[in-house]
């Protein structure tokens, strides 16, 4: 088969999942599928998968807000507002459960408001510690993960040692493949466009993970070994709490730049770290989720975020950093002035993009991204 046709077919499968609304995606699930919703990378998806359920990530969809105002104040981020609106409109009625992980004050508040609705049969609040650097955090998180495992076993399905190990291996392999795709795009982006890339990433949180892994494998096998040169593109680092949306990556690409690395919520925060496979699975999960740092709601020392970001940006050879934040995200906005100053003192220019609803902001963002990329462009 012609490589281009095969590639287009694979990308189409990612697109069919990633471009649909929640209810439409659910209509593609088999009858025995148990979708369990979650929001953030601090939920150990491996456990949900090992219990025989499908981890289904809520990443904020474009939706007309008509019910949410009766429950939430206006200064909540789009992810929280749109997800709750989806719940109230019945778009999430297919979920058998929802998992909240402790991150920011808004998510914490949402967890309780969500529970009051009693629309989703199961809810679990995983208390991820905020202190990642204390000797007391590992035993606490381990106990929380064990509590989560017991919850899943009581309400969803038995988690055997072998099923958990299998799930850990599967998610690790997915992370490896996603990293390969990132690396590939950093070398020559044209084959996988920005939109296609965002859809590949998003699909990985919504679809059957075995099938997703197969698709990633096929995709990597079909990609030409030597990507086209991207010397003419400005390498950028993308930081923030956004998930992969179709628009950002294509806007950056159209402006003449390429994202060579990120720390966004659905990007490298998911695949940066592996779960050790040669140890007790619960301890492995504890270690991995505690080591996962970059979310500003977590504390690992006053300088940790600055030092990590500086190191990563320098390592990526990015010429500039785009901060892409949800409006009203306190945790990110508190960090921003010091991060900006630290980067700019190293000669790395930055651009802040504050977005309320990702689907509405394209044209405003386009002009600002173009100006930023032109400033960095050597040509």
């Amino acid at each position, binding site marked *: 088969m012609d490589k281009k046709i095969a590639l287009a077919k694979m990308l189409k499968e990612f697109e069919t999942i990633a471009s649909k609304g929640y209810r439409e995606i659910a209509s593609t699930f088999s009858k025995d599928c148990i979708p369990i919703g979650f929001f953030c990378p601090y939920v150990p998806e491996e456990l949900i998968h090992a219990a025989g359920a499908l981890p289904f990530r809520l990443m904020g969809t474009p939706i007309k807000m008509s019910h949410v105002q009766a429950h939430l104040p206006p200064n909540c981020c789009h992810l929280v507002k749109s997800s709750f609106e989806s719940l109230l409109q019945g778009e999430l009625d297919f979920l058998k459960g929802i998992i909240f992980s402790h991150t920011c004050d808004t998510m914490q508040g949402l967890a309780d408001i969500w529970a*009051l609705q009693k629309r989703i049969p199961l809810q679990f609040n995983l*208390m991820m510690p905020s202190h990642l650097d204390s000797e007391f955090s590992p035993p606490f998180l381990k106990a*929380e993960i064990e509590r989560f495992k017991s919850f899943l076993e009581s309400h969803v399905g038995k988690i055997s040692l072998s099923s958990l190990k299998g799930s850990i291996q599967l998610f690790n392999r997915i992370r490896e493949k996603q990293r390969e795709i990132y690396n590939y795009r950093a070398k020559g982006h044209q084959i996988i466009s920005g939109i296609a890339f965002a859809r590949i990433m998003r699909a990985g949180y919504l679809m059957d993970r075995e099938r997703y892994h197969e698709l990633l494998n096929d995709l990597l096998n079909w990609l030409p070994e030597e990507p086209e040169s991207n010397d003419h593109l400005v390498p950028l680092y993308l930081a923030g709490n956004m998930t992969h949306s179709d628009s950002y990556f294509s806007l950056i690409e159209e402006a003449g730049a390429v994202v060579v690395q990120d720390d966004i919520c659905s990007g490298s925060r998911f695949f940066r770290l592996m779960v050790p496979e040669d140890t007790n699975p619960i301890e492995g999960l504890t270690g991995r989720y505690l080591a996962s740092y970059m979310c500003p709601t977590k504390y690992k020392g006053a300088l940790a975020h600055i030092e990590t970001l500086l190191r990563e940006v320098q390592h990526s050879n990015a010429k500039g950093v785009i901060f892409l934040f949800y409006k009203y995200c*306190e945790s990110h906005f*508190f*960090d921003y002035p010091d991060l900006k100053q630290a980067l700019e003192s190293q000669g790395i220019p930055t651009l802040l993009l504050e977005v309320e609803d990702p689907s509405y902001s394209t044209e405003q963002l386009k002009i600002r991204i173009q100006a930023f990329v032109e400033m960095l462009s050597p040509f």
Partner: protein
Amino acid sequence: MEDFKSNENPYRKINSTSAYRRLMMAYYFMVKHPNWFGKKVAWITSGGPVEPLYAMGVLPFYPENYGAMCGASRMSVSLCEAAEHKGYSHDLCSYALTDIGSSLTGRGPLGKLPKPDFLICGNNICGTVIKWYELQARAFDVPLFFFDTPFIHEEMQDHTLRYVQNQIKAYIAFLEKQLRRPFSEKRFEQVCLNSFETITLWKEILDLPRHHPAPLAAFDAFIHMAPIVTLRGTRWAIYYYRKLKREMEERVKRGVGAFAREEIRLIWDNIPIWYDIRNLSKLLSSQGAVLVADTYTSAWAMDDLDQTQPLNGLAKAYAMIHLNRGLEYKIKKIANLVEQYGAHGFVMHSNRSCKPYSLGQLDLKREVTRLTGKPGLMIEADHTDSRSYAPKQVEKQIQLFLDIIRTKDKAI
């Protein structure tokens, strides 16, 4: 509709206020000049465990309490703007912006504050303080101790209790390292006894408005809460609250209320609107409406304090304060306040700057009304930043709300 501004002020002055002013002046004088007293200063969050600091002879300074002071003296807006000029978003908590602005400019009611020796941050009140204290630790280049108290959506788990209790021990070790002297159990026990007595006195004072008429309005409690926040654990706070309690008990005996007229009794939810307390108090008193209880000042009347094990008891009590509990708990608490204080309704401040307090209030309002049959009013503001406040609109809302209560309750 009655114009409250033309009325004579029916508010009854509390005599202990002059002692309160002297006490707080002395406290802020020491905080402003710690070197004169040979003291080190730690900045601490309002829900942070202060007893170990007093036991080690360290002066605690509360940026939130200072933020309230800046708000009440209407200095917050310019300080917030200074922080925004540095790149901080207008949408951030105005206590934090006020503190950052004050640190950047050296301005505020106390002028330039001395650099803290270290910082103590407890996230039992919100996640905002983690970021706020992190950035101040960088700005001042001082050590930061972070006391992580996982949120309690339903029940506290055993491993959560162990986690917070272990951290209290780490906190002691941190203080020993910073101060280069050993922690004295004996001194700590004395400070805890003081703290427990202060908390008990504060609880008893807050219970007195159950009487009709209420001797103390929540707006008084907002002012007189400063010692329970800043001086908890000292003898000074005990002496002061004994005095205030005596005065309030005397009022109860004589049947004297906080306001000359008491026709409507209300509960307040959330942090006060610091820059408009006087105006709102005047409005309510002119209408014969008294805020008899609130959820904010009672946060320091810790319910679950095990006095037999000071260290472990403190850890548990600090992890279980009002703001660190789930919505079901808050619904029950407000419904209980409405019942216990014989309130006709409740007023909720939807506070743009405080998400842990404000998220869930809309559901809370509906649930409390369902449970008690009493109406609730939601007003929108910000605890210190008056740029997000429309006073005339709020006054109108309150007046309409009081009219509704009067119409509903024919006994008034």
